[in-house]
């Protein structure tokens, strides 16, 4: 049965992967070395692909329920800031390489656990997207984990940059596990597994998990940081200036 709950959940998954991809793509041609430039943009392409599958499905559901003519393009290019449901962590500035890597590590590790749950839910399409995406996410987790270790356990400079990145990003990880009515699975139940995954890598990287930090919330409900508006303005400018434009 199609309902608003599954539509909102699908849009949340689509928005988070799209916005993170949009941020990561800023690294294109600016990566520290060519191989890593290619790696982050490959990951970005996977995220855009996942995002497209979720938007296509959301459009199908919305059109059937509300008799509209949404497409993946109208959903990504013509919705406003308040309608986007992505996690706040996705819209934060890239910062340096350490901060970009750490965000990918936090998010991919979460996405891996979440999608392992989603592959078993009743909705056939979400479950198919989850199974397909997991094969890619496994690469993302491996790559970002290795970089967290390389930088955390590297030079004093790279270590201090990782410590700073943790300070900036940790307050945005609580949102992953903040349960709300649209969730397709019990997200609070994967929190301890996520902490274990992070801890295992942090031990190798000589890094510590911060304790008793206030967690930022709001992205899933459409309450964003000041950064999202700028991202959408740039990302949507062409479609808004030339409505119905196609490549």
């Amino acid at each position, binding site marked *: 049965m199609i309902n608003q709950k599954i539509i909102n959940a699908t849009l949340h998954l689509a928005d988070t992967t799209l916005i993170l991809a949009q941020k990561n793509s800023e690294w294109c041609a600016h990566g520290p070395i060519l191989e890593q430039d290619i790696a982050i943009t490959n990951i970005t392409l996977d995220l855009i692909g996942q995002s497209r599958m979720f938007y296509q499905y959301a459009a199908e559901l919305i059109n059937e329920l509300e008799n509209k003519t949404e497409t993946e393009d109208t959903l990504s290019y013509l919705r406003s800031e308040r309608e986007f449901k992505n996690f706040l962590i996705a819209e934060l500035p890239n910062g340096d390489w350490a901060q970009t890597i750490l965000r990918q590590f936090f998010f991919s590790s979460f996405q891996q656990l979440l999608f392992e749950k989603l592959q078993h839910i009743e909705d056939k399409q979400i479950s198919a997207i989850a199974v397909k995406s997991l094969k890619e996410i496994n690469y993302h987790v491996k790559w970002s*984990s290795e970089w967290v270790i390389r930088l955390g356990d590297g030079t004093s400079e790279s270590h201090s940059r990782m410590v700073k990145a943790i300070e900036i990003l940790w307050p945005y990880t609580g949102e992953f596990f903040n349960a709300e009515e649209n969730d397709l699975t019990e997200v609070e139940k994967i929190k301890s597994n996520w902490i274990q995954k992070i801890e295992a890598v942090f031990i190798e990287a000589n890094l510590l998990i911060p304790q008793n930090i206030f967690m930022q919330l709001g992205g899933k409900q459409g309450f964003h940081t000041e950064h999202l508006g700028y991202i959408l303005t740039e990302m949507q400018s062409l479609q808004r200036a030339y409505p119905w434009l196609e490549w």
Partner: protein
Amino acid sequence: MINPKEHIYSILEKIPDPEIPVLTIIDLGIVRDVIIIDEQTIEIIITPTYSGCPAMDVISFEIKLALLETGYKNIKVTYTLSPAWTTDWMSESGKRKLLEYGIAPPKKNSSRVNKMLFEEETNINCPQCNSSNTNQLSEFGSTACKSLYKCNDCNEVFDYFKCH
């Protein structure tokens, strides 16, 4: 008389993958099914390799074009996601063609894909000199499906079509 389904497959077998043109879309295992609705109406079911594969729209267009040219009028190309694409579906002739083209074909069964941190697929033979003394430069290569390796004997850098 030739079986119509086989006839359609023989047309699809001539369509190259836009990114690795030495392989056809049949070699890659992208075509999942051919459904004949009536004499002029057919549905082709395809699956993407990776989620973000930018070639899917082109492939869909090529399929329609090739079938229109051979007289079919109504062609529908449908995407399916399940079961998820795997390199296990790549044909043996596809693997041979890849090697001749200079890309090392996927070596193992995809169930071996989950690796430990810092672990890389080893014993990937160099497509130029066949040496197994090679190592991985980067897990991510020029397209989503490939990683970058270097041969320590002939010093040639090459693409490896990774198990997926």
